[in-house]
């Protein structure tokens, strides 16, 4: 942690050019640059427009079902025999994950800008479903790019998107997962700049996306902070959230960043293990440029991007949002990783102790909680983000557990 940051705030990033320290920025082809600048201008105006915020808040309350509950997990706490474990229940949102918060904000921006067609990339399908949902709600046509591998392992979400009226385009390039879906979405965008708005699903991509996705997702942390104070009269000691691109984590963390007593732990996907195939960009990568921003990337010596691997399609991405890269560098947030097997254990642990089937993404956070809670005092509080529910994952979990459905 540098003196400059402690003296000021961790919440005033990025700078006016979209940089979080050395990270972030606007590394896009010239065709997209004027669009990115337009989006930035429109977002600045929207932020200052009370009507925009009011419509966003209204939709979050009455359509998404916010505020989501803050839940004390008594049996999990007892089993771990350490800190009290609380969950922010964003899996109870409409569409079953935190992704919808961001989609509501971005589609309102798209309509302000007069855009008439929506595109998005998706990995696990949660962002695709959330995007298809807001497109149905506002009557805009929508194309979702999804890696063919993910189409196969997330069949229920593919069907959901189609029911909602979206066109799902399987992407066969590369490993046919989230990274390749994002490449294809960028190719579509550059060819349809005049009428198309790209709803990016995580707090990454060219500025202003990392900032605006964080702002829309910060409803998680703002609610959780107020709820925790109301319920316990104090702030949590530790926040825990899973990280692929990092939107649920930054949404939870950001409102707490200047609360010096609150520690934070971001949990990357260690896949088969950090010495094997994984998706932990901070643990196993180094800074580079991809998909419009400078951030930590899994890459070889020549700067060729490596394929991430995780049991969770939503974490299977070789990069991470630039604000996390910065928060790691300045030391405000700690980052760790858990393996596929540990995540599967976390998944089953929450099912068994609390009657909640989590998605494989927050199962990584649960696995980290399982490790860290026993090392903390019983008067201490962990708040973890339960960012998605596991209905979509039961088929792949069954397969991993050797159960045939």
């Amino acid at each position, binding site marked *: 942690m540098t003196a400059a940051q402690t003296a000021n705030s961790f919440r005033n990033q990025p700078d006016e*050019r979209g940089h979080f320290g050395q990270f972030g*920025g*606007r*590394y*896009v*082809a*010239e*065709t*997209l*640059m*004027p*669009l990115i600048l337009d989006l930035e201008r429109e977002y600045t105006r929207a932020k200052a427009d009370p009507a925009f915020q009011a419509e966003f808040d209204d939709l979050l309350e009455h359509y998404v079902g916010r505020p989501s509950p803050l839940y004390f997990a008594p049996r999990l706490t007892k089993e771990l025999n350490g800190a009290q474990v609380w969950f922010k229940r964003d899996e109870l949102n409409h569409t079953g994950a935190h992704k919808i918060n961001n989609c509501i904000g971005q589609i309102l921006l798209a309509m302000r800008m007069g855009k008439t067609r929506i595109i998005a990339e998706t990995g696990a399908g949660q962002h695709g479903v959330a995007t298809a949902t807001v497109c149905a709600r506002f009557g805009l046509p929508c194309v979702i790019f999804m890696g063919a591998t993910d189409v196969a392992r997330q069949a229920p979400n593919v069907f959901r998107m189609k029911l909602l009226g979206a066109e799902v385009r399987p992407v066969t*390039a*590369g490993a046919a997962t989230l*990274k*390749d879906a994002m*490449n294809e979405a*960028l*190719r579509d965008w*550059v*060819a349809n*700049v*005049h009428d198309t708005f790209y709803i990016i699903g995580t707090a990454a991509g060219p500025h202003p996306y990392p900032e605006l996705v964080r702002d829309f997702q910060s409803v998680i942390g703002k609610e959780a902070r107020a709820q925790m104070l109301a319920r316990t009269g104090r702030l949590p000691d530790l926040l825990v959230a899973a990280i692929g691109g990092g939107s649920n984590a930054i949404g939870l963390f950001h409102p707490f960043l200047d609360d010096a007593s609150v520690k934070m732990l971001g949990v990357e996907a260690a896949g088969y293990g950090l010495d094997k195939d994984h998706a932990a960009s901070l643990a196993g990568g180094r800074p*580079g*440029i*991809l*998909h*419009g921003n400078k951030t930590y*990337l899994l*890459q070889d*010596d*020549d*700067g*060729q*991007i490596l394929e991430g691997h995780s049991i969770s399609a939503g974490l299977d991405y070789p990069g991470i949002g630039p604000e996390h890269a910065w928060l790691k560098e300045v030391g405000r947030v700690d980052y760790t990783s858990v393996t596929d097997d540990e995540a599967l254990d976390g998944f089953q642990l929450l099912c068994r102790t609390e009657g909640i089937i989590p998605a494989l993404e927050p199962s990584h956070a649960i696995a980290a909680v399982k490790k860290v809670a026993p090392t903390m005092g019983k008067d201490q509080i962990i708040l973890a983000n339960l960012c998605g529910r596991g209905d979509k994952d039961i088929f792949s979990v069954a397969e991993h557990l050797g159960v045939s459905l």
Partner: protein
Amino acid sequence: MSRFDRAFAKGRPALVTFVTGGDPMPETTPAILDALVEGGADVIELGMPFTDPMADGPAIQAANLRALGAGTTTADVFHIAARFREKHPDVPLVLMGYANPMVTRGSDWFAAECRKAGVDGVICVDIPPEEDAELGPALRAAGVSLIRLATPTTDEARLPAVLEGSSGFLYYVSVAGITGMQQAAQASIEEAVARLKKHATIPVAVGFGVRTPDQAAAIAKVADGVVVGSALVDLVGEHGTEAAGPVRDLTRALANAVHSAR
């Protein structure tokens, strides 16, 4: 006088050709580059393969995958460039690619390697002027041109920023889209080139979607240069290690059309 200056000062429009380095394998690229020169290309763009070619259509995406699949490294690309420079001392050579492989060992390292290999210019797809604090200055310090892209969305207000610090030539991407797909309407190209020429003191070359000698000739009537990539890359995809002959034939047809367009 730089190689670019000479290439664009032959009293006729220039043919700029693109192939991906290491496609289908590093050992075969030199013969393909020779074929481009023999066919009459005035400027050679050598693509640096990248895992995530976000601005490229199916043809060049496939070329990137073939090159990387054959194990092509950055060192291979510079080796190909150095060999080209030795064999063709007068033909300008441009490396074209994406930011990450260029900056991964530092912009200064990359610029120095370009200089050593005799590379005249660099096109980096995903570093716009706003983010060019390192690569552009490093290239200029090494005496290597930074060639920037202008597009249909680059308005009058942005154009000075795009031109600032760029040299060699200005590459006008004639369609808002990816490489090798649709071609822009001739009228829109003429309007755009006229607009660019009001600001640019360097030559303007037009590319994206140009596949045939007729298309190239039409553009050469108004532009200083015409860029052809995907059509040549498709030939490499089709003929593999035997691609030099077909590449030479298409280049010759394109060069004849471009050079005699006016």
